[in-house]
């Protein structure tokens, strides 16, 4: 079970984010839940790529580094893309939240539903 422990801790983090999205009424808290779940997914992919005793996937001119000793570089490249796209979606969510606050004067989603008409 010890070999799965980092995955399970990462899953706990993801579940905290999902819990915030489901149960909170404040829009900012919901956005925070989305951000935390996204961090957990990125962390999970990097954890899957880790090789025990591995090195960073960077060659050097001064010392001999075997390609077999490197950690998996492919998830790193894709998570790099995913992080930047996560920032873009977060910025869009925050812009919508600020706009909703300007319209309704509150971040509470249940009160927005009552004001709809």
């Amino acid at each position, binding site marked *: 079970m010890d070999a*799965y422990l*980092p*995955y399970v801790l990462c899953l706990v983090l993801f579940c905290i984010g999902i819990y915030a999205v489901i*149960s909170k009424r404040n829009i900012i808290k919901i956005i925070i839940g989305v951000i935390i779940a996204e961090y957990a997914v990125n962390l999970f992919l*990097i954890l899957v790529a880790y090789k025990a005793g591995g090195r960073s*996937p960077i060659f050097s001119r001064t010392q001999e580094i075997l390609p077999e000793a490197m*950690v998996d570089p492919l998830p790193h490249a894709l998570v790099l893309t995913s992080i930047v796209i996560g920032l873009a*979606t977060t910025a869009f969510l925050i*812009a919508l939240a600020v706009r909703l606050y300007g319209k309704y004067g509150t971040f*509470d989603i249940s009160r927005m539903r009552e004001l709809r008409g």
Partner: protein
Amino acid sequence: MIELYVLIGLMIAGSLIAIEVKNLLSAVVAVGVVGLGLSIIFLILKAPDVALTQIVVEIAAVVLLIRATLNRDIAMKYCGNRPFGAIMGILFTGFVFVIALITFKDGLNLFGAPLMTVSQFYPLNAIEGTGATNVVSAIILDYRAYDTLGEATVLFTAVVGVLTVMRSPGKKKEEDLQDSK
């Protein structure tokens, strides 16, 4: 790897504080703790490029969140849970947790032993194929450059969306409304 567990524990504590604290500004600062801890974890897991990007993105996200919660009235306003929110949240989250644990047992590789059947190609051929010593940048800028193009497209679309949502309504629109009346 004890530092990995300590840092993930710090991230879990920070995220619990972030979703349960009543002051929104404190919640945003706790999200900053979670993101910077994540960037140190990336360094420990030998992903320096990802760690640098994570620092920059985290700071930008915290600045945007602070912009949204800067007003003191907003920060102190407390909204509770949804009706039945805690029960629904715990039920659904527990369901996700159990399903994911079963899936972990089923097919996931052990921590520290990645499946490298496909991606072994990249470190073996990066120097001859692209001339880049950093294998990650060889992948994102050469082997999978279309991914980076798509990323730039998504970023551009998001910026256009944010500008569209945030722009102040023009005066011309009100005149049009009066004309139509």
